């Protein structure tokens, strides 16, 4: 059991089949994973509460991250390459636990908000990667 720091977490993106670290990230995380359900409520329900049942499928969710965007940095240009040439991409997060566990997943489709220019902040970009298949959670 440990309270791991976020400081030092590393995100890697595949470039030419090679996992390559993404620089200047300020936050990142997995979101939206959900085991699918359907409304199984029937008219002859015994009480007022609706019921749900598992579909057997799981929504893998997305991986979102924010970074100080450097338009001249090759690693950041590689991110926008996914907009100009859409393609599936392998990603990897290296956790900061003592065993430096890695979590691998495949992204398909990306939302890229940025670069944004704010008087009170540096130039930033927010990205969201749609995960396809297993998000690679430790089991």
């Amino acid at each position: 059991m440990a309270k791991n720091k976020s400081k030092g977490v590393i995100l890697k993106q595949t470039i030419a089949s090679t996992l390559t670290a993404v620089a200047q990230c300020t936050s990142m995380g997995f979101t939206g994973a959900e085991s699918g359900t359907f409304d199984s409520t029937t008219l002859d329900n015994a009480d007022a509460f609706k019921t749900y049942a598992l579909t057997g499928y799981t929504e893998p969710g997305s991986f979102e991250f924010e970074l100080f965007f450097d338009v001249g940095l090759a690693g950041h240009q590689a991110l926008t390459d996914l907009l100009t040439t859409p393609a599936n991409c392998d990603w990897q997060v290296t956790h900061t636990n003592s065993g430096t566990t890695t979590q691998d997943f495949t992204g398909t489709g990306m939302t890229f908000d940025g670069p944004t220019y704010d008087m009170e902040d540096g130039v930033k970009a927010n990205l969201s990667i749609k995960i396809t298949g297993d998000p690679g959670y430790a089991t």
Partner: protein
Amino acid sequence: MRARIIREDMQLGMSATAYPETDERVVWKTVTQNGRPVKRRFWRLGAEIEDPMVWRLVQCGVAIPADDACREACGLSEDQMAFAQKRYEAVCRGIAPEDYQLFFNKVISGYEDDGSFKKGDNWQAMPELWEEPESDEDNE
């Protein structure tokens, strides 16, 4: 277009099926994944790889051009390549951008598990980074 890998820690993406285990450029290493040791494919140091995007690897600082097409596509001078390689060392160690200069000057080598600085070879150039902050009582 071809480039040569210059780091030993460059792992292949899990979908990189074009490089089977019999490929001499690939070496298997044990990493921790899902909390368990598993074998994963890494590029052998000096592996020459061919891909339309290898010039990006050169720009990122993890490879050097192995042909004229790659050299032209990456558009970097030797000095720029050297800087990209130095910067990647910081990026892949998870160094925060505000700490890059400390890392480049070898004052720090990374972070401890608690997030504090890990001493580099030149840590004595800035020993104050490891000094305990004075408590309010000391100031009174």
